[in-house]
């Protein structure tokens, strides 16, 4: 076993220190070391996107990122999006438009949608479908997922604020 390395991550605004093997995947640091089990492992081959988190604000697959690569970075997981009393517009969209059935893929889909809306706040339906190419949902046929993202885009533009993640912004300065 190779020597463990010290890594510091800011996860959902909170600074966390870990000792990890270089080969540990970020998704396992989040789930196993930090107990943030909202991020799921689906295919584990960089296809399905269930493990998607925001790394320094951009949607990435945490099963294809080493924890050591994320040293010093800000990570936002689905737990950092919002809570039951204050849903993120994307979460609200999935609630209102019934954007899930079994829910396994949903955290990754939502984090990908946040990453998409950050760069394209008013996407067309086609752009939403293209943007969600890297997530696989085996239940819904995507129709309501697309509607959920459209809802989030509309809601956000009505509020006149960018789709951002409150918790990530309040973290320590890296």
């Amino acid at each position, binding site marked *: 076993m190779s020597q463990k390395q010290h890594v510091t991550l800011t996860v959902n605004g909170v600074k966390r220190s870990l000792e990890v093997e*270089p080969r540990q995947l970020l998704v396992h640091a989040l789930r196993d070391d930090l107990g943030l089990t909202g991020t799921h492992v689906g295919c584990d*081959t960089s296809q399905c996107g269930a493990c998607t988190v925001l790394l320094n604000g951009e949607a990435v697959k945490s099963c294809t990122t080493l924890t050591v690569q994320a040293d010093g970075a800000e990570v936002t997981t689905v737990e950092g999006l919002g809570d039951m009393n204050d849903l993120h517009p994307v979460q609200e969209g999935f609630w209102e438009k019934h954007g899930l059935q079994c829910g396994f893929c949903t955290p990754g889909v939502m984090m990908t949608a946040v*990453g998409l809306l950050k760069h394209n706040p008013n996407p067309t339906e086609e752009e939403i479908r293209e943007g969600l190419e*890297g997530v696989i949902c085996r239940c819904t046929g995507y129709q309501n997922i697309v509607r959920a993202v459209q809802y989030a885009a509309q809601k956000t533009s009505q509020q006149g604020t960018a789709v951002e993640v409150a918790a990530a912004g309040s973290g320590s300065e890296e």
Partner: protein
Amino acid sequence: MISSTFEYERVSTVAEAIERLQAAGGEAKLLAGGHSLLPMMKLRLASPGKLIDISAVQELHGIVREPDGLVVGALTTHAHVASSPMVREYLPALAQAASKVGDLQVRNRGTLGGNLSHADMASDLPAVALAYEAEVYVVTMDGEETLQAEEFFLGPLLTAMPENSVMRSVKFRTPPSGSKSVYEKVPHPASGYAVVGIAAVVAVNEDNVVTHARIGITGAADVAYRARGVEDALIGKAFTEEAIQSAAVYASDDGMIAGDLYASEAYRRQLCKVHTARALRKLLAQ
């Protein structure tokens, strides 16, 4: 899936990376975005003893305009390339190809240099590198080297990168003024990789005669290739639907076309012809 064990080190300069590569005696791999290397390591198709993380090497990031082209740093992500106003203006086929690599999350991590040095036979960017006659700038133990795109890709997962070297950047040449370019792709329905991908660059003079034609084709052969048969058939002819149809028949002549479980050799040859014609038709319509 977890890879076998390895040592990990982050470096901050190219010189440091080369020094570490040398010291590891062939056991080390460079790590950029990791989106080609880490999946291979997880499947244990690759088991390097050491990863040298170059992602923090500042000099390898960014896009610079030069009189004859755009120099794209090896660590520039596909997302950055695809959204760069300079790339979209001067090298539209590069922006289009970068926007079709993998998916949104992959494009946020995957890098131009990583993609080209991995040299997957179905990767999008080699076609564009050929069509824009790219130069690959490499730093070796002995200094700098320049490799032409056509001599860079040797076979599946095989490039002309010298031992213990780091790709610094790639210059994509801006084609003659008045040129048009496009990237046309048939993605594999499951993997998204190119079954065929055609990068086409064409310039015509005031009499609509083709003065410059460069066609790069990826996915169809064991390695991306220049479709010189198509280029030769176009140059000197009026750029018309008839010229496109008679040139496109040569689209698979310059590659070692092979069949696999998904597409037979004959089907791939047909796709090369049909989609080269479609790419050229898009340029005709622009």
